[in-house]
C-alpha cells in the first residue's frame, strides 16, 4: 500500500493553521483533534483529494471517526480523530464531499453519533421497524440481540407538482437480482427524481466480523459480495497482513492477481451480455453466457470453486497451479479475449442497439468527480481512478495495468470501457503467468498486537474496495470496516437516470450494476 499522501496532507493541514500529527503505526495515519476535523476536510477538498470513506470505531473511552482520501499516484491518506468521552457529535463532511452523506447516515444508525451539519439524517441501514436507540456497532450491543419489531415509516421525498406521480419498485424485483427499493417521481414516463432505499440485505457483516479470528473473518469477507469474492478476500487479507506485518510469497501474490483478473473478465462478460439482453439483443447475451460458463468451469476444475471463493486466505492462496493448469488458463484467457474482440466488432455494427445505449444514463465528468464515482462508472467519464495503479499493491507495483478512461459517461461508454478492460486483464494474466516464480504459496500467520490494524484498497471489477481492520486481544478482530465501490456508485445511478424515461431504468441500472449486498453489509 502506498501511504505517501499522509505526509502531503499533514503538511497542508499544518500550513492551514491546523495540527495534524503523523502516526507511524499500523496502519500509518494522521491524527487531528476534533476541533481541527472540519478544517482538515476543507484542506483536503481544496487540494483536490478524492474522498474514499468515513467510518467510526469505538475506543476504550469514547469513539473515533476515520476518513480516507486518495490522489492518484500520491497514494492514500488516513485521517483519524478521537472524540472525548461522552461526546457524540462530530462535524459532517457532507458540505465538502457529497458521497460521505450515506456513510455518515450509517455511522448515525450504527453508533448513534451525530454528524452535525448533515442535511438528511433519516435512517439508512436501520429500517423503520428497528427499535429506537439500538446501535449495533457499539460494544455493549451483543451481536445476537433479538430486536423486537416496532411500527414506523420511512419518509420518502415527495413532490406534489401537477401531473407528477410516484412509482414504487421493489424491494423484490422482477428479475433474478438482489433486493432494494426504488421510488421514482415521474411526469408521464420522464423521471424527475429517483430515490433509492437500500439496506434490505443488511446481514450485520461488520458486527459479525468482531471477535472472529482472522481465518473465520476472511471467510465472511469472501461473502460480502459473492460476485467480487476474490477482490473482497484480497482486500481483507491485505489489511490483515499489514496488521500482522507478514509478507506474502511472490508466487501467491501473482496467483491472487490472476484470480482477480479472471473474476474481472467473467463479470464484465456476464454484464455486457446482460446489458445487451436489456435492449432485447439476446444473441449477445447467449454468447456471453457461454463464455462466462466456460470460465466458471475452468475455475471449478483448477481451483475447486466456480467463483473462486475462499481461494485467497490470510498469508497467501489455497490453490496452486501446475504447468498444465497455467497452460490451460492462459489458453482459455486468450481464447475468450479473442472471442470478445469479435463480439465487440459485431456490437459496433448494430446501429439499433447502439442507438439505445448512446446517450442513456449519462453522468458528466464534474458530477462524477465530485462524487468520486469508481470503477468503470468513473472511468467511462474521465475519472482516472484505479487502485491497482494508485495503491500499487503487489504484484501491480511491478506489473501495472494500462488504465483507460473515456468520455461520455453513458451506457455506451460504460460498455466500451468494459470491453477494453477485458482485453487489458487478458494482457495482465499473460504477463503475470509468464513471470510467475516458483516457491511457496502460503506464509505462516502471526497474531497481530492488540490495537494494530491495516488499511487496503483493492480494485475489484466494480471498482475500488477500501478495507480497514483493527485487531483486539488474542488475534480477534476488534473492528472491521469495508467500503464496497457500490456505496458511492449507487449515488451516481440516482443522478444518471434523471430526465431519462422509466422504461430505460433497467438498462441504466444494469450498466452500473452496483452491489446491494456489498452496500448493505
Amino acid at each position, binding site marked *: 500500500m502506498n501511504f505517501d499522501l499522509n505526509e502531503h496532507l499533514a503538511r497542508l493541514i499544518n500550513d492551514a493553521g491546523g495540527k495534524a500529527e503523523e502516526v507511524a503505526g499500523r496502519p500509518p495515519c494522521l491524527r487531528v483533534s476534533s476541533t481541527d476535523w472540519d478544517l482538515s476536510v476543507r484542506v483536503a477538498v481544496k487540494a483536490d483529494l478524492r474522498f474514499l470513506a468515513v467510518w467510526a470505531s469505538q475506543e476504550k473511552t469514547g469513539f473515533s471517526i476515520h476518513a480516507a482520501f486518495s490522489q492518484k499516484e500520491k497514494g492514500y491518506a488516513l485521517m483519524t480523530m478521537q472524540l472525548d468521552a461522552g461526546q457524540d457529535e462530530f462535524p459532517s463532511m457532507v458540505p465538502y464531499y457529497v458521497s460521505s452523506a450515506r456513510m455518515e447516515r450509517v455511522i448515525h444508525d450504527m453508533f448513534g453519533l451525530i454528524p452535525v451539519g448533515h442535511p438528511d439524517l433519516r435512517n439508512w441501514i436501520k*429500517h423503520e*421497524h428497528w427499535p429506537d436507540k*439500538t446501535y*449495533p456497532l457499539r460494544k455493549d*450491543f451483543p*451481536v*445476537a*440481540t*433479538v*430486536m423486537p419489531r416496532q411500527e414506523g415509516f420511512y419518509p420518502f421525498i415527495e413532490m406534489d407538482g401537477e401531473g407528477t406521480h410516484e412509482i414504487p419498485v421493489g*424491494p*423484490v424485483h*422482477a*428479475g*433474478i*437480482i*438482489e*433486493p432494494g427499493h426504488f421510488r421514482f417521481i415521474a411526469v408521464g414516463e420522464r423521471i424527475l427524481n429517483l430515490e433509492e432505499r437500500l*439496506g*434490505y*440485505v*443488511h*446481514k*450485520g*457483516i461488520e*458486527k*459479525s466480523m468482531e471477535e472472529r479470528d482472522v481465518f473465520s473473518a476472511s*471467510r*465472511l469477507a469472501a*461473502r*460480502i*459480495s*459473492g*460476485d467480487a*469474492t476474490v477482490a473482497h478476500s484480497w482486500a481483507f487479507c491485505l489489511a490483515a497482513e499489514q496488521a500482522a506485518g507478514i509478507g506474502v510469497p511472490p508466487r501467491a501474490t501473482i496467483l491472487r492477481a490472476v484470480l482477480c483478473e479472471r473474476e474481472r473478465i467473467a463479470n464484465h462478460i*456476464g454484464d455486457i451480455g446482460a446489458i445487451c439482453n436489456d435492449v432485447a439483443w439476446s*444473441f449477445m447475451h*447467449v*454468447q456471453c*453466457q*457461454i463464455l*462466462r*460458463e466456460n470460465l*466458471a468451469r475452468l475455475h*471449478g476444475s483448477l481451483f475447486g470453486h*466456480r*467463483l473462486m*471463493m475462499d481461494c485467497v486466505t490470510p498469508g497467501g492462496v489455497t490453490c496452486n497451479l501446475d504447468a498444465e493448469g497455467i497452460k490451460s488458463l492462459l489458453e482459455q484467457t486468450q481464447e475468450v479475449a479473442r472471442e470478445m474482440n*469479435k*463480439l465487440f*466488432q*459485431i456490437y459496433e*455494427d448494430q446501429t439499433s442497439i447502439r442507438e439505445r445505449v448512446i446517450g442513456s444514463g449519462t453522468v458528466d465528468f464534474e458530477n462524477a468527480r465530485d462524487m468520486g464515482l469508481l470503477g468503470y462508472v468513473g472511468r467511462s467519464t474521465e475519472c482516472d481512478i484505479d487502485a491497482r495503479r494508485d495503491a500499487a499493491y503487489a504484484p501491480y507495483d511491478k506489473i501495472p495495468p494500462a488504465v483507460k478512461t473515456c468520455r461520455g459517461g453513458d451506457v455506451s461508454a460504460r460498455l466500451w470501457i468494459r470491453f477494453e478492460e477485458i482485453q487489458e486483464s487478458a494482457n495482465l494474466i499473460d504477463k503475470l503467468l509468464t513471470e510467475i516464480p516458483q516457491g511457496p504459496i502460503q506464509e505462516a500467520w502471526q497474531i497481530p498486537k492488540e490495537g494494530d490494524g491495516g488499511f487496503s484498497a483493492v480494485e475489484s471489477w466494480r471498482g475500488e474496495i477500501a478495507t480497514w481492520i483493527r485487531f483486539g486481544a488474542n488475534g480477534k478482530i476488534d473492528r472491521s470496516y469495508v467500503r464496497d465501490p457500490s456505496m458511492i456508485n449507487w449515488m451516481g445511478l440516482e443522478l444518471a437516470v434523471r430526465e431519462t424515461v422509466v422504461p430505460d431504468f433497467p438498462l441504466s441500472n444494469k450498466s452500473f450494476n452496483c*452491489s*446491494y*449486498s456489498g452496500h*448493505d453489509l
Partner: protein
Amino acid sequence: MRRILQKIIHKGLVTEPLKTEENQIKVLGERLNEVMRRRFQGSLAIRQVDAGSCNGCELEIHAMNNAYYDLERFGVHFVASPRHADLLLVTGPVARNMETALKMTYDAVPNPKRVVAVGDCAVCGGEFGISYASLGQVSNVIPVNVTVAGCPPSPTDIIRGILKAVQ
C-alpha cells in the same frame, strides 16, 4: 447480420445433451421433462427471491439459464410476479430487513406452492448465521420443502433441487 449468423453457426449447439458431470443432467433432464409434462402441463413457473444473499447463489441460478443447461427447454421458466409462480426459489439467510417482503411474496404465491431453499445460507444460515440483523435459515420464516446445500450450489444441484420439489 452475416457476422452474427457466422458466429451462431460457428459456435454451434453447446446445450449439453446433458451428459457431463456423469450423466447427471441427462438423467435429471429427462426426469424433469417427464414430471413437467405430467404434472405441470409442460410449464413450471419459478419466482426467485433473494432474502439476503451475497449474490453468489444468484450467479449460479442465472447459469441454469445459459445455453449449456438451458433450463427453459424443460418448460421451467422464471416469472416476474409471485402471483404467477408455482415455486419459490429462495436464497440467502433471511435478513431482518427482508422478513416482511419474503413473507408477503410467499403469501402471494397461489396454492399449492413449493419452496426451495438454495445455498448454505438459506439451508442453515451459512456464514452469516443468526444475529441481530439475520434470521438465519429460510425455514425460520416460511415453510421450506426442499433444501439445496452448497456455497453456492452448482447449477446442476439447483436443477436437482427443483426436480425434487415438484416430484
